[in-house]
């Protein structure tokens, strides 16, 4: 059903990205795991929206929570100034 929707909606655009946490069930969102969370941050340290990251709603929420926790503990920056 999903496939039909995609092809109908956007023949022009590339295939919709899969949520990587759904694709690989062994991956867990965790605020300790800074390396993984960095994949969902822009250069300035902003959280990448799910329309671009491709995350599903559940996992995007978890990623956002984890990033905010990591920011409180100075594991991740609020703003990245030295680009």
């Amino acid at each position: 059903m999903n496939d039909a929707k995609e092809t109908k909606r956007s023949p022009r655009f590339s295939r919709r990205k899969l949520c990587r946490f759904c694709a690989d069930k062994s991956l867990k969102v965790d605020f300790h795991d800074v390396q993984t969370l960095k994949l969902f941050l822009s250069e300035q340290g902003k959280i990448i929206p799910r329309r671009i990251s491709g995350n599903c709603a559940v996992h995007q929420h978890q990623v956002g929570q984890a990033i905010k926790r990591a920011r409180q503990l100075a594991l991740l920056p609020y703003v990245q100034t030295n680009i």
Partner: protein
Amino acid sequence: MREYETVYILRPDMTEQEEAAINSRLAEVVTREKGHLLKQAIWGKKKLAYEIRHFNKGLYVSLKYVSEAPVVQELERNLKILEPVIRFGTFRVGEVENLQERIARQAKEDEEEAARLAQQREEAAEEAEEQAVDAAEESESTRQVEAAEPREEDSGQDAGDETEAEEE
């Protein structure tokens, strides 16, 4: 009963004894309040993503425990009082229905981690050994080169002397 994780950051310029004193005091708070401490993990000194109280580095320590809510309050009260704690955060991990099962799982995880660390250490030791062997071989070869070089220099100097003598 809920599982919580409290992470706190200590200022980086403390002695090991001071760090140990604070860590044991905080661990004691959890057990005194009848919480069950699962693990106290020292992550080590890490670079902070931004400056806190003019520090760029901090010692991260995490406490995992299963308890009721008042334990969190008491622990956070202590963290506020302690001057070397530059930042702390408590995060709810989830509900724990079977404490014994959770303890067993933690023990298993700890074992696995210890095994992984031991393996890493072994690999690192092996690598270091290989490097030492390589370095020894290299230094031997350089020594040979060095041994060969001075003679050349001597001969060069001799030649220079001769030319100077000729000029005179």
